[in-house]
């Protein structure tokens, strides 16, 4: 282990490392207890990140998608090319950049400020929110059906194909891998899934078979939570290692 120079103070990079190291230690100090250093870092973080997101929103969303589009739209309008100004072809289909169509999101954007000015206009801001949430819900309905419900169910059923050569080929599975232990595992997987689904029945009285399944379902859930917890430990320690590597190598300049 060789101790090199601590990061130099007088270059922008070096100064940056010093500041980063100081802030790193400020946050770590929270582990002992709340203190002025943590408070300082916390408040700085809130301010800096809010500012950062504003500039991201401006450069990545507002400027290219709204301001530039509107500018192009108006210049096309100035040339008298109305269709081009709205980015439509003669049938009204969308062909190109939206240009002046961006007036619609602009309006919706402006609506949400109205709640600010007067409660009388609050219903206009609600139109924006309703649009925003309506679009999100519309996307979510088929998507959650397809990716969460059906794919999971399909995957579960498909697992059993492996025990039949014809079906396995159709499903793109290798029937050679079907062994007794896989048989047991697949059965266990199915039972586990069925029992855990049974845990989420809300309107049926928990009696008899359902109650027993409920119980097994909870066991499966608990094993799964324990497993994910244990599995995540590694990722979290990785992050800590990352910080230590920064402090030791980049800041203190320790070479190993």
């Amino acid at each position, binding site marked *: 282990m060789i101790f090199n120079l601590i990061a130099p103070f007088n270059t922008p990079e070096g100064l940056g490392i010093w500041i980063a190291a100081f802030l790193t230690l400020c946050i770590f100090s929270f582990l002992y207890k709340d203190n002025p250093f943590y408070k300082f870092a916390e408040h700085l973080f809130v301010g800096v990140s809010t*500012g950062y997101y504003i500039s991201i929103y401006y450069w990545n969303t507002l400027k290219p998608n709204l301001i530039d589009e509107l500018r192009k739209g108006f210049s096309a309008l100035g040339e008298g090319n109305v269709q081009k100004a709205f980015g439509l072809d003669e049938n009204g289909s969308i062909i190109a950049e939206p240009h002046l169509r961006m007036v619609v999101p*602009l309006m919706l954007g402006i609506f949400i400020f109205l709640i600010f000015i007067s409660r009388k206009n609050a219903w206009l801001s609600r139109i924006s929110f309703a*649009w*925003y949430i309506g679009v999100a819900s519309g996307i979510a*309905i088929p998507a959650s059906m397809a990716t969460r*419900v059906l794919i999971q169910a399909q995957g579960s059923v498909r697992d059993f194909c492996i025990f039949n050569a014809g079906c396995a080929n159709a499903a793109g599975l290798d029937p050679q891998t079907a062994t007794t232990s896989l048989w047991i*595992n697949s059965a266990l997987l199915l039972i586990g899934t069925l029992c855990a689904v049974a845990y989420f029945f809300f309107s049926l009285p928990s009696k008899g078979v359902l109650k027993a399944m409920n119980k097994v379902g909870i066991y499966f859930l608990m094993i799964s939570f324990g497993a994910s917890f244990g599995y995540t430990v590694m990722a979290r320690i990785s992050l800590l290692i990352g910080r230590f590597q920064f402090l030791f190598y980049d800041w203190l300049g320790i070479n190993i």
Partner: protein
Amino acid sequence: MSNRGPLAVAFIAGMLMIGDYFLDWGPLNSYAEWVQKYYIIIAAFAIVLGVASLFKLHLGKLKRKEDGWRYSIVTFFGFFAMIVTGLFMTSGDLTGTKHPWNAWLYTNVQLPLGATMFSLLAFFIASAAYRAFRARSLEATLLLLAACLVMLGQVPILTGGVFESLPEIKQWILDIPNMASKRAIMIGVGLGMMSTALKIIFGIERTYLGGSEE
């Protein structure tokens, strides 16, 4: 009944997206794609509401000289440093987050703060494991055992003999019981999400719109 307008809007917006998902019809698809792409502009505008709230909070603290009002100055300092370098300064072609000063602030202030907060999880996951993983009941014991076996399977701490099969045991727990309950949770979440979203579109669930008074 001023919520009728917004509810109609939510319905139309939702149906548009559902239609786009299922139907193969050029005009509908292209409009839906456009809507999807640009409705984030509403979010970009909304950040102004957020900033206004943040200013109000901290200006209030400054004005009333509340406990810790000095920290509000720190927040403003960070905010304006990022805004000035990110929005108003240009260096050649480089603007925004590519501006060297803004990038410097990002790399040396925001990034280490975020990474260190994230790394606190290593400590908290340890303290949570210590406190919660006690064999109090059958459920708790299963939780505890699964966690320990998976941890042992992750890193080569115990080797030789029986312990050689720990990685396999870990993989089995992840592949079979873990997969089973994940599937069940996903199916449940999917149904819950879908029915909530349907209630929103059909206007049955309207709490999110708040009051309807003028």
